[in-house]
């Protein structure tokens, strides 16, 4: 039997976005769910090309969403466990940053992750965060300072 083809992402996104948002709101509340929603579908996009067939996509994306929710809860909890940082050196930069940016205010966290994890320009970050370029730069630099302070203390 032939494997089910991976559908164009647009269809996949349209089919599952409501359920993903519902799950994230339940786990994280309205405000944090929005960032987590973006992160879920960006992670899905990142992995989508490597999918070999289009089966169980619902279970797959809900698993990603649950993982993002767990990461979000962990990073907003003040007593994050520092030994988790850097234990796997093969993790991509953006995942590495996910733990480093634990507990930063959402905007700063997003700016730091997009700048240093995804290597976006401030112009692109401004667009993604719906703010000005200056505000994006400001948020990233404040975020970095906050991380430095925390690491050195």
């Amino acid at each position, binding site marked *: 039997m032939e494997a089910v083809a*991976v*559908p*164009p*992402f*647009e*269809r996949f*996104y349209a089919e599952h*976005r*409501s*359920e993903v*948002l*519902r799950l994230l*709101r339940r786990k994280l509340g309205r405000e944090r769910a*929005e960032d987590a*929603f*973006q992160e879920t*579908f*960006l992670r899905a*996009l*990142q992995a*989508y*090309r490597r*999918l070999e067939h289009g089966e169980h996509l619902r279970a797959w994306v809900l698993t990603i969403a649950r993982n993002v929710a767990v990461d979000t809860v962990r990073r907003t909890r003040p007593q994050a466990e520092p030994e988790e940082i850097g234990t796997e050196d093969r993790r991509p930069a953006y995942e590495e940053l996910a733990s480093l940016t634990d507990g930063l205010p959402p905007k700063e966290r997003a700016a730091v992750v997009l700048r240093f994890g*995804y290597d*976006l320009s401030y112009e*692109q970050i401004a*667009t*993604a965060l*719906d703010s000005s370029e200056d505000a994006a730069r400001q948020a990233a630099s404040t975020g970095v300072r906050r991380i430095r302070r925390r690491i050195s203390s």
Partner: protein
Amino acid sequence: MTVSPDLDRRFREAAASLDLVDVGFDVVESPIGDLFVAVSDRGLAEISFDTRAEDQLELLARIAGPRVLRAPRAVDLARRELDEYFTGRRRSFDLTLDLRAMPEFTVSVLRELAHVPYGETTTYGELAARVGRPRAARAVGTVMNRNRIPIVLPCHRVVGSTGDLVGYGGGLDRKIALLELEGAR
């Protein structure tokens, strides 16, 4: 639970900014009706007068990869050049084109078609002669009919040997409108 238009927009923006899509598409307004426009990582891949994305997405996924997403930002450059064309400020397009998955004959005809100047017309037979297949006028007609990137690849400038407009994938009205815009009629 509905995803708010703002959240949806931000996700699509971020996906395009992060270069995470294989094909970004959007609907672009034009004086000859809305256009479905799709841009891949290699360039402009499709313009269609049929704006129901349904039929197009699978084809695009097969050509360029499965990450096909509506992402207005991805078609910004194409949108700008099309706007300039329709307002008479542009006579030729600078967009790179994605001609993947087309038969060799199709590609050679389309490359020749791209050289037909703004405001001028040629015939199916002439075009066939220019690709070295003088008797293949009918096959050239089929290529025009299936042209995946009309307007930019100007199949509207190709007419019958008697000067009849013959036909157009988007309907004769559109062919007439484009030729009038270019002052060729």
